[in-house]
């Protein structure tokens, strides 16, 4: 057994073939069964397996791209549940982007934000108001609704709007710290929701609690995006940009200044890092990720109302970040996917199964323990268990280890041979 483990650790071909076998089996079972949550989760799990292989980074991205663009859409296309699978995958993608945004604020900069969904709402309403007749109420000329062609511009606009509101919120709020900041942001989240709920008088901007309906679906060269499997690719594209951006920031001058502020404000300031500006940047960039996805959400649902942006949503996103591992990009992605799957599929399936059992009279559940109520209970229990056994998250944040050849000037590039021999020497010494 240990011999096999060792072989697995060092052999990339073996890893890759095992991964391929796993993908094949899970993809086939998704394809052949009409609707199997387990098979679908296993198929998504192949991405996690891929993360733990010892392939090079570029290779991992290539395989992940292949899985996400080809394997998953085709495997789910087999049965009648195609769209529902794709819907779940799209939701996962939306939450991953939001969780990555919140991770910048909470994980990197250490600012606890309990009202993060506000930025998602701002993105959604930015598109919602102009892609329905709503904007005619305050802009003369009967120009609206804008057609779905504008959706692509609005993705960017939604991000920018969210970033602007991030700065506006941050300016007064970032003078307070820790628990106080958490409470003020919580208030901000609620204020935004309540404003959207009431901004129908004196000028009807948001249509209040009635919400905005028939929002124009995206349109690209005459192709209308209405199905989940189409949105899946939009989300995938945005997500690629978001992940790329986060990874850039993480190990840059900006990312370092966020972490420095998180670790010690006074020391960070004494190293020349302007506190307020650094925190504002984190707020704005984090918020913009959420705003981008808000636009997609509005276009996908074609209907939005303030009830989609409650405090529960903010805490759910925070749970994704904490559960996955604060400050850890792969962890946060895993956390977001896991929580979304739990909420949308696993728990729903489980309660459905319990309902069925009790209806058939196999088990009898008292009313107080009705399956629907159990759903939140089980979710909470899972969170507590993870908090106890993995307090730093599922994949905790690790520091980047830089090889000596990169930090030492002129070693790797000017003398490739020397560095290769020195590597060899090191290996000999090590064994």
């Amino acid at each position, binding site marked *: 057994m240990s011999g096999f483990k060792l072989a697995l650790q060092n052999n990339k071909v073996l890893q890759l073939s095992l991964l391929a076998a796993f993908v094949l089996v899970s993809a086939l079972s998704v394809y052949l069964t009409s609707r199997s949550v387990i098979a679908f989760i296993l198929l998504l799990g192949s991405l996690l397996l891929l993360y733990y292989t010892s392939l090079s980074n570029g290779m991992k991205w290539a395989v992940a791209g292949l899985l996400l663009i080809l394997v998953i859409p085709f495997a789910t296309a087999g049965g009648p549940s195609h769209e529902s699978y794709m819907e779940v995958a799209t939701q996962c993608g939306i939450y991953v982007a939001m969780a990555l945004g919140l991770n910048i604020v909470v994980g990197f900069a250490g600012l606890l934000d309990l009202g993060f969904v506000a930025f998602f709402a701002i993105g959604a309403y930015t598109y919602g108001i102009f892609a329905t007749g709503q904007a005619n109420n305050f802009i003369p000329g009967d120009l609206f609704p804008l057609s779905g062609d504008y959706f692509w511009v609005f993705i960017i606009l939604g991000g920018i709007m969210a970033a602007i509101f991030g700065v506006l919120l941050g300016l007064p709020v970032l003078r307070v710290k820790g628990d106080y900041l958490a409470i003020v942001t919580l208030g901000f989240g609620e204020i935004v929701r309540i404003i959207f709920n009431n901004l129908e008088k004196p000028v009807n901007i948001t249509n209040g609690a009635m919400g905005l309906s028939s929002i124009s679906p995206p349109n690209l060269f005459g192709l209308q995006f209405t199905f989940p499997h189409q949105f899946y690719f939009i989300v995938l594209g945005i997500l690629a940009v978001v992940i790329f951006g986060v990874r*850039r*920031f993480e190990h840059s*001058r900006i990312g370092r200044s966020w*972490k420095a502020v998180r670790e010690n404000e006074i020391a960070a300031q004494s*190293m020349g890092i302007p506190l307020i500006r650094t925190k504002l940047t984190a707020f704005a960039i984090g918020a913009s990720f959420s705003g981008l996805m808000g636009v997609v959400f509005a276009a996908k649902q074609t209907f939005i109302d303030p009830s989609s942006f409650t405090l529960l949503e903010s805490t759910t996103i925070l749970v994704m970040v904490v559960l996955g591992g604060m400050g850890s990009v792969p962890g946060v992605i895993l956390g977001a996917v896991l929580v979304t799957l739990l909420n949308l599929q696993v728990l729903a399936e489980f309660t459905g199964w319990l309902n069925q059992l009790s209806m058939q009279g196999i088990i009898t559940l008292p009313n107080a323990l009705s399956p629907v109520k159990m759903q939140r209970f089980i979710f909470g229990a899972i969170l507590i268990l993870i908090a106890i056994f993995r307090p730093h998250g599922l994949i905790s944040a690790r520091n980047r280890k*830089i090889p000596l050849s*990169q930090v030492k*000037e002129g070693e790797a590039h000017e003398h490739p041979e020397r560095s290769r021999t020195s590597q060899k020497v090191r290996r000999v010494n090590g064994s």
Partner: protein
Amino acid sequence: MNILSVQGLVKKFGGLMAVNGVDYAFERGKISAVIGPNGAGKTTFFNMITGIYVPDAGSIELDGKSIVRVKPDKITDQGIARTFQNIRLFGSMTVLENVMVGMHIHLKAGILSTLLNLPLVRREEKETMHEAYRLLEYVGLASLYNEEAASLPYGAQRRLEIARALAAKPKVLLLDEPAAGMNPRETNELTDLIRRIQREREISIILIEHDMKLVMGLSDHILVLDHGEKIAEGNPEDIRANPKVIEAYLGKSALQDEEVMPI
């Protein structure tokens, strides 16, 4: 020529006069020490120079330019870097990253250029890494560059703070009790390091220290504070013989007893 001068500097905390009307001028390129018993106001004095506290009265001038009410990060921009009495490293970051943060003010990468990963940014990152590694070699921590800063032994953490401060390429380096908690061997190494910094990098150094052997051995000039007031200044020999200083450290009775010479 003076690099840094303070005049009539006052800081009150409620009814306590932490620093009370101190005048002093620090000479360019020299090592100066600020000494005094616990609670004399030394760290408060440093905190005013670095902008963490705003003085209630008085002036602070760096190179003839007032830095009163300037934000700490801007003061670093103008050429003052410091270390802390209670070590303030970025604990969960690596040793190398700590020094790279120190170079913040000299880097240009912005949001957009970082996002686009422009060649300028990549080159800057590479150079930052090299420079940070050179600084770690300079203070003798190069082999630990990938370690988490919080995992370092105490003495190494103090040296890392110095490396981080040097990364800002300051004109004036403030060291707040750099030898606290060090054993004699580490203190000797530190003494060498401070002297090397002054000589090779042409940085004016101001240090707060309780280790009198280190202070007397290193300093060109000493300022003595007690209860927030300046009670003496001068070169080490003057200070050692100054009755006011001996009184402040050991009480009045020590003055009568000729054999007890603490410093």
